[in-house]
């Protein structure tokens, strides 16, 4: 009987936040990634860029201070951090395409062993497409990290040999934070850096759709107790 405790969504965001150093410009995608901002290390003085042109997004605004004109790319009413500025959409995306974003953290449906990312189209019948800024960020940020559950609700792997869903960008992802592991995407495929307690390497491999290599110094994936979303 396994005693493993998969990370919840908040804990996954916390784990990714621990790897963000000071002085960086970071873009956080819709969903789990935006919560990374709540769990940054105290010494990490970073600027968060939102695609709508906000450079230096701060915490969510208190209800009485919320302003409909001050929003992030998730339409959330936010505040600005000291030193913030705001540019228009063309400049915002020139910033993204020009390689000025140090790290973008995105949600995903699938990541392939070569770094291909599928995160914009689940092929839901009848629903219109929604790509937003995902392709721009995935193709052009200096580092593309993903936060996602290791498997689908039905148990199919999300880390795969080749994506089955429509691609967002090719060969772009360099690291994946899941509820079970932290996995680097390297020229030699997936390399596991962290693994939760109570799950064997063979059991993780069973839940993964492509070969895994384990780093010689593979660590235990842990996070503080954090209440999950919803």
């Amino acid at each position, binding site marked *: 009987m396994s005693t493993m405790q998969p990370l919840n969504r908040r804990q996954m965001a916390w784990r990714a936040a621990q790897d963000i150093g000071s002085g960086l410009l970071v873009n956080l995608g819709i969903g789990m990634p935006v919560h990374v901002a709540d769990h940054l290390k105290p010494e990490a003085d970073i600027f968060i860029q939102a*695609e709508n042109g906000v450079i230096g997004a701060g915490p969510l605004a208190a209800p009485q201070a919320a302003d409909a004109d001050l929003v992030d790319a998730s339409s959330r009413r936010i505040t600005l951090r000291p030193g913030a500025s705001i540019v*228009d959409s063309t400049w915002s995306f020139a910033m993204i395409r020009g390689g000025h974003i140090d790290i973008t953290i995105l949600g995903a449906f699938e990541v392939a062993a070569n770094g291909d990312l599928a995160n914009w189209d689940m092929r839901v019948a009848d629903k219109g497409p929604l790509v937003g800024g995902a392709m721009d960020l995935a193709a052009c940020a200096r580092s593309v990290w993903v936060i996602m559950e290791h498997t689908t609700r039905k148990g199919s792997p999300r880390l795969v040999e080749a994506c089955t869903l429509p691609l967002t960008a090719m060969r772009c992802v360099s690291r994946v934070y899941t509820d079970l592991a932290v996995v680097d995407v390297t020229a030699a495929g997936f390399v596991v850096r962290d693994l939760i307690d109570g799950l064997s390497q063979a059991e993780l491999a069973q839940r993964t759709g492509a070969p895994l290599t384990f780093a010689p110094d593979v660590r235990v994936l842990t996070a503080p107790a954090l209440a999950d979303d919803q």
Partner: protein
Amino acid sequence: MAIDKRVTSAAQALADVADGARVFITGFGGAGFPNVLIRALRESGRKNLTLIVNSATHRYSLTHELIEAGLVCKVVCSAARGQGKDLSPFEKLWKAGKIELTCLPQGTFAECIRAGGAGIPAFYTPVGVGTELARGKEVRRFADRDYVLEHAITGELALVRADTADAYGNLTFRYAQVNFALAMASAARLVIAEVRAVATEPIPHQRVQLPGIYVDRIVTVGA
């Protein structure tokens, strides 16, 4: 006669818009939607419109009213998914084959419009290479990377939301209200701005975010 771009109503501002116009609409995430002008355009009954708008389905924009009213034949956007469980007005008409859709990555969408206003007919971007959104488009290699050829977008009309204007059409914006306004205003033949207030004095030059030379008509709509 001194320049004065103020008009008395949204209806008057839109009086000479023709059927079949390609219409830019600003706004992102709740900021900068020209909802008074959108509603006036619907009430004008102009048909066969092409909307160039970041989202066809955003819940704070009235874009859906134009679509629901059957006035729109094509949408160019980066987001066309309804938020609810049921299909959005756009999705229903799109599925029924009554609205054509061009979906672009948001940065490509913005740059196509910027190019349209800047005299650049087309450009290469690394975004979208190897994806469905690049299907059928020319791909060219520069140095060690592939790029997709994207074409400029221009239009007949831009509807813009801003904070303040002066009689010259100079505009200022609050926070993230500016989003697509600068690009869209540069790429359209007729630019109408709805603003919270018109300043009695010219806006100081260092505060002008969109020069009045890009703006044709100003409608004061309040907060």
